[in-house]
């Protein structure tokens, strides 16, 4: 190793924690296909069909002194960018384990990155940190506060991870830290708690509530990570959300699951009871997300990262439901796909309509087009 110098034309290097996970492996494959980055995956084991040129280094964030391990690896590898994707993405009954991995794991990774002098970081977060609240606006922008219920330990860990991330950015003002808040991912081959909830056999819902959901396609999620990597100045929070919304009831319709609507004050207890007995898929406090909307705006990511989601929420849900349901259905998915395509087109047309406040000309160019009204002196 002595005297080793990288060639002048060395490719930039990226280290990906959790690069063997569902999204991580997808992202690593897409990045390796480009061939412009030197990729190191830090995970428990390499994923199946990982490209040969991707190197794997063992990392277990649950072992004591994991920050030292991360530091050692980062010192040896000297990555230009660290992408932190490691974590559990479904609520675990072992809340302590999940907390150690999602919250403390992030703290350790960021601490080590600071010591190892990594200049760019990309952190995985979720739009659930905004919290599902009755007084949420229809679209949550990045300036919105993180108002998730603290009783919901699964989301609370994500909120804490973001705080660690923010602390890191405060301590290292020269570093570029991009926090990507992903809308709920929905993919047929990913058996996370959302698919398990949507597949049933029955799904608990709130009587009289039908929140709007966003479903992000995994290809769009991976594309967003690539975009963030391609944007050297990416700093701050970005919502990675699809266009269009789909009510929960319509999602359950696609999956062919009967809903059990319970009054909301009963549903939280029923959800918690189902969770502790092992029937449910998420803790009771997580049931806010089937009561109130938590829909994120994606304008900032569009503008700054150039992220353009290719699938709408409806298209993603149809794709996942179609793949999960092989036979025994009374729904014509071909017809639904037609509908979804037409809806996506109309949605695009709607969004194309004049947005951004136009700056008026010197003689009030924009005001002249509007009906003449009484002008008030201030």
């Amino acid at each position: 190793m002595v005297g080793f110098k990288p060639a002048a034309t060395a490719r930039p290097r990226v280290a990906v924690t959790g690069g063997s996970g569902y999204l991580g492996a997808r992202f690593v494959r897409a990045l390796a296909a480009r061939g412009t980055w030197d990729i190191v995956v830090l995970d428990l084991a390499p994923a199946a069909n990982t490209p040969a040129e991707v190197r794997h280094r063992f990392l277990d964030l649950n072992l004591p002194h994991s920050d030292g391990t991360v530091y050692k690896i980062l010192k040896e590898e000297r990555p230009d960018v660290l992408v932190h994707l490691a974590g559990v993405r479904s609520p675990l009954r072992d809340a302590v384990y999940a907390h150690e991995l999602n919250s403390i794991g992030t703290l350790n990774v960021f601490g080590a990155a600071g010591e190892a002098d990594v200049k760019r970081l990309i952190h995985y977060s979720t739009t659930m940190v905004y919290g599902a609240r009755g007084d949420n606006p229809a679209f949550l922008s990045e300036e919105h506060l993180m108002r998730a219920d603290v009783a919901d330990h699964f989301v609370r860990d994500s909120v804490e991870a973001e705080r660690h991330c923010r602390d890191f950015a405060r301590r290292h003002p020269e570093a570029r830290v991009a926090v990507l808040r992903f809308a709920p991912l929905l993919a047929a081959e990913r058996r996370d708690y959302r698919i398990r909830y949507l597949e049933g056999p029955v799904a608990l819902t709130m009587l009289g509530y039908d929140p709007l959901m966003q479903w992000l396609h995994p290809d769009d999620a991976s594309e967003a990570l690539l975009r963030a990597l391609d944007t050297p100045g990416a700093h701050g929070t970005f919502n990675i959300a699809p266009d269009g919304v789909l009510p929960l009831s319509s999602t359950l319709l696609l999956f062919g699951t009967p809903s059990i609507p319970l009054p909301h004050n009963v549903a939280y207890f029923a959800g918690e009871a189902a969770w502790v007995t092992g029937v449910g898929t998420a803790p009771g406090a997580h049931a806010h997300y089937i009561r109130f909307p938590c829909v994120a705006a994606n304008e900032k990511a569009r503008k700054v990262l150039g992220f353009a989601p290719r699938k709408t929420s409806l298209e993603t849900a149809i794709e996942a439901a179609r793949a999960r349901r092989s036979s025994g259905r009374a729904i014509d998915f071909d017809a639904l796909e037609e509908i979804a395509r037409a809806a996506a087109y109309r949605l695009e047309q709607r969004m194309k309509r004049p947005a951004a406040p136009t700056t008026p000309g010197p003689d009030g160019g924009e005001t002249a087009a509007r009906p003449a009204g009484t002008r008030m002196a201030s």
Partner: protein
Amino acid sequence: MSQLKPVAAPPFVPSLVPPASEEDLLQNLLGEASKLLAAHPEFTSPRSWVDLWNLFLHRNQSLDLDDFGYDEAAAKVWHPLFDFLYRVWWRVTLSGVENVPNEGRALLVINHSGVLPWDGAMVKHGISHEHPARRRARMLALDMFTTLPFLQPWLRQMGEVRACPENGERLLLRDELVAVFPEGVKGVGKYFRDRYRVARFGRGGFVRLALRTRSPIIPISVVGAEEIHPIIFRPDFLGRPLGFPYFPITPTFPLLGAAGLIPAPTKWWIDIGKPIDPGLDPDFAERPMIVNEVTDVVRSTIQQMIDSRLARRGNLFTGE
């Protein structure tokens, strides 16, 4: 004598009933229906019955929503009810519809009354029917309506959104018609003795919205809606535990139960005033005194419109 030939014993066969094939069984049980099932094997799966049930629940909904969740197909179902209320029940007279622009953004400011927000529904119905461009206004609904069970998905399907600056700005920037009720709860739940006295207009949030998006403000007065549910008493100690901002006591409610929620068939006038264009820079949105002044101008305009209509109004129910 001929000898009888011994007959060979038949080989031993266990006496099993040959199993009927599944098709035969279905044929016997269901007759013609079995052919249908044979042609569509998916209907023998329990999940497809769930599908049919879910499709039945969705019979009036579509999957083609706009990004706020407005469902045109679902909204259409309620059209006959609103048309009946508009033409027959309240016999609404709408004037000044020419003040609503054919295209482009505008902020409709309406006085609020009548316990339940029927006034907003009627203004919206009136504009969408009598305006040549058939413009569909979108209401910014109070939190108390958008968080209540059953009302939340229903309002969303009808195209209403929660009243907050972010939603209003997004809609106005997309050149939509946005209707607001700046009086809020103070207006919709006012006592009968305070009728037609326009309450304080919030904190001028709608003016800031109009200034920031450079939208003209169109004042609208509704006369006739104050008397549909005259509030005699409003005990807060009853409303609070139920999660309502108020619990109205009217001559008919809660005395007659659900029937007390039938509004009185008064005669309504909806007057749409000339657009008020403050003509100010968006920076003025950050100057509270100026915002307050514009708010006052809009409020007094609406109060004058109400007063002049009241002066011409005769009988409460016939209007003559």
